[in-house]
C-alpha cells in the first residue's frame, strides 16, 4: 500500500474529516503529526483568479478548525491530487486542469505557506480531445521522500521529480503506450513496484521503481481489465 493510500485510508477512518468532503473539496492528506489535514479545492477559480487552492484543517476531538487557505499558482486550475512529504515539510499538488505541479511548504505547526515551487508541465497525447495538453493526475512521494512520482493522463507519461529545497526538478520521464491515459498511480513501497491504472485503455501496468536512481522502468506486466 502506498504512502498516499495509507494517508487516504487514515482520512477515511477519521470521522471528523468525513464531513469536510464536499463537492468543491477533494483529495485529502493528513500530516505525519496526525494533527493537521490538507484538502484540495478542485476549482477553476479562486478569489477571481484562475487557480485552485489548498485548505489546512486542525484535527480536534470535537471536529476541525480551518487553519488557513493557500491559493495555488496562476493557471493551476482543477488540482487533482495531493501528497505530503514523509517529513511533513512539503505538499506537492498535481494540477490536472492547468497542467502543472505546485509545491507548498508547511510550517512547523502544520500551517500552509505560499506556493514555493511551480513546475509547468507541457505535452499531449493521442486523443485530440482529452489529451490535448498535459494533465498531471496523481502524485506520490517515494519511500525516501527525495522523489515525487507522478502520472500524466494527457501526456501518457510517468515522471520522477527530485524535490530540492521546495523546487521540483525532473529526474526522469517514461513514455507509456500512446493514448493509454495513465491515471491513478500507487507505489508498493515494500516491493518498489508501481501500479498504474489507465483510463483510456482497459489496462493496468506494473513498473519497477529504482528509488536510488529515481527511475521508473518500462512495464514488466500488463493486466487487461
Amino acid at each position, binding site marked *: 500500500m502506498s504512502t498516499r493510500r495509507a494517508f487516504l485510508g487514515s482520512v477515511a477512518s477519521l470521522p471528523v474529516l468525513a464531513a469536510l468532503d464536499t463537492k468543491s473539496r477533494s483529495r485529502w492528506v493528513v500530516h505525519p503529526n496526525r494533527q493537521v489535514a490538507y484538502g484540495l479545492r478542485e476549482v477553476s477559480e479562486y478569489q477571481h483568479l484562475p487557480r485552485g487552492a489548498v485548505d489546512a484543517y486542525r484535527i480536534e476531538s470535537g471536529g476541525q478548525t480551518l487553519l488557513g487557505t493557500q491559493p495555488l499558482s496562476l493557471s493551476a486550475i482543477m488540482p487533482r491530487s495531493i501528497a505530503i512529504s514523509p517529513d511533513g515539510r512539503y505538499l506537492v499538488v498535481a494540477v490536472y486542469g492547468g*497542467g502543472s505541479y505546485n509545491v507548498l511548504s508547511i510550517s512547523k505547526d502544520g500551517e500552509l505557506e*505560499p506556493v514555493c515551487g*511551480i513546475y509547468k508541465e*507541457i*505535452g499531449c497525447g493521442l486523443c485530440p480531445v482529452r489529451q490535448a495538453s498535459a494533465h498531471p493526475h496523481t502524485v506520490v512521494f517515494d519511500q525516501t521522500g527525495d522523489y515525487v512520482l507522478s502520472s500524466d493522463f494527457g501526456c501518457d507519461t510517468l515522471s520522477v521529480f527530485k524535490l530540492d529545497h521546495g523546487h*521540483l526538478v*525532473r529526474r526522469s520521464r517514461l513514455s507509456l503506450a500512446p493514448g493509454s491515459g495513465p491515471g491513478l498511480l500507487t507505489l508498493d513501497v515494500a516491493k518498489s513496484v508501481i501500479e498504474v491504472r489507465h483510463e483510456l485503455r482497459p489496462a493496468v501496468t506494473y513498473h519497477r521503481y529504482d528509488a536510488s536512481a529515481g527511475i521508473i522502468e518500462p512495464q514488466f506486466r500488463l493486466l487487461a481489465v
Partner: protein
Amino acid sequence: MSSSIVDPKDPRFDVLKGSRNLRWPSAANEYASSVEICDSVERAAEALQRAVNSGKRPTVRSGGHCYEDFVVNNPNGTILDLSLLTASRLPGDEGRFRIAAGQCLGDAYTDLYKRYNVTVPAGTCYTVGAGGHISGGGYGLLSRLHGLTVDLLSAVDILTVEANGKVVARRVDKKNDPHLFRACRGAGGGNFGLITGFLFDKLPPAPTEVINAGVSFAWAEMTEDRFVSIILKYGNYWETRGKDPDTWGLFSVLNLSHSSSREFGVSLQFCNPDGTCNDLGVVNEFLGLFDECTPNPGAPATVSDRVIPAHASLSQPCGTEKRPMQKRVWIEATVGGGHGDRRTRAKYKSAYMKRNFSVAEAKCIYRYLKTKVPGVDLSGFVFAIDSYGGATNKAALAQETSAPQRASIMKLQYQSYWQNQQDDAGRLQWLKDFYTELYSGPKIEKAVAGTPYPGEYYEGCYINYPDVDMLAYKFWPQLYYGAGDLYPFLQDVKRRYDPNNVFHHAMSVRA
C-alpha cells in the same frame, strides 16, 4: 562576457526582475527566478525552449510598461526580456516595414521616419515597448487620422509552443494561420505566443508638422456648473463635429486632475489630413468652444507625463496672444518629449464612450474630484479623456482585428500615481469607488452595474489598460473583447496555438 541569463547571483538581477510600477511584484515570492536577455529571434526561440524544457513559466517583456503585474509576477519563472531585440530589417522582409517587438515606440518612430518618412499611429510614450503596445491595439495621436496600429498590420512573426512542447517560429498573416493573425491584432500580449516582430506592407506618410495647443482652467475658480459645461462641450464636439473627416487630424486630451492641484485642461495635437498645418480652422473652431468657459488667459494646459508635450526649444509660436499655439516639426513633437521612464506606484482603469457624458456623470466626476479624503493625498491623479473615433471607427475592422471597439468617440484613462506604499489602500479604494459609482447611474443595467459594459453608451475597456478589479465581474472578457463572438474566437485560438497555456497571466484569454 556576461551571460544573457541573469539569475539572482547576477548584480543586474535586482534591477531587471522588477517593474516600473513599484507596486509589483507585491511579494518576494512572486519574483521570477531568472531573466533572459534575448537580442535576436534565434535567442528568443532558444530561451523560450529552455524555459519550456525546464518546467518554467515564461513571461515576455519588451518595454516593461504593463499596467498590472502580468510579466513580473512570475514565481520561479523566467522573464524573457526582448528590449534588445530591435533589428528593424531582417532577411526576407522584402521591402516591408518592420517594427521589432523590443523597439520602444520613440525609436520605432525615428527609424521609420528617417529610413522611409512613414509612421504608425501608435502611442505617445517614448519608452513603451512595441511588443505589448501593438499586441493590444496600439493607438495614439494619429489614430483618428489613420486608425489603430493593428489596423495597418500585414503580418506578425511569432514563436508558439506546440502541444508537444516544441517551439516553432511562424509568420502569420491573412493567408497563413489567419486566426492567430487576427488574435495578434488587438487581443493583448501574453496570450498566444512570443511575438518578435510586426510587418507592414504599407504605412501612411509621416506628417510634416503639427500644432500643439491647449486651454486650462483654474480649480480655485471652478464651480460645478462651469465644470459640467466644460466637460459637456468637450464630449459634444467628439460626438458631433469630431466625426467629420476634416477633423480627424485633431487629437486632444482633457486631463482632469483632483481639485487639490492648481488647474486642469485640454491639450491637443493637430495636423491637416495632408500632414501640414496650413489650415488651422479646425483648431480654432475647437478651442473657440471653450472661450465662454473662461480659461486661464494664454496659459498652456497642465503637463503630465502622458500629455502631449509643449517643448519650446524647436517650436515656433503661432496663433494669437489669446490663443497661443506651437507649431512643431512632427518628428520633434513625437520623439522629442517625455521619456515616461520614471518609476512610481500606479493604478489604472479605462472606459470607451460611445456618447457624450450626461449631466449626472459630469456632476459625479466633479464631486469625486472635489472630495477630500482624510489621510489620502489625491494629487497625482489624472483622468485623461482622450478623443477617439475617426479612422478607428470603421466597423468592418472589428471583424478583421481583435479590437472590437469601433463606435466610440472618447477613450478614458484613469491614472493614479503615488510614491508611498502606505498610501496604496486609500488610493486604490478611492479610485475603485469613483469608477464604480460613475458606472452605476440610472442608464446602466443592474446586471452590469459598476462597469462600462458595451451597449448604447459605452464600449467596454481597453486591454492595454488592464485592470484586475474587473476580474470580480464574471463578464470581464466581454468588457475587453465585446459581447459578440470575439472572445469565444480567441479562446479557440488559444486552445489551438497554446494548448498547454504556456502563456498566461491574470487576465489572459482562458483556455
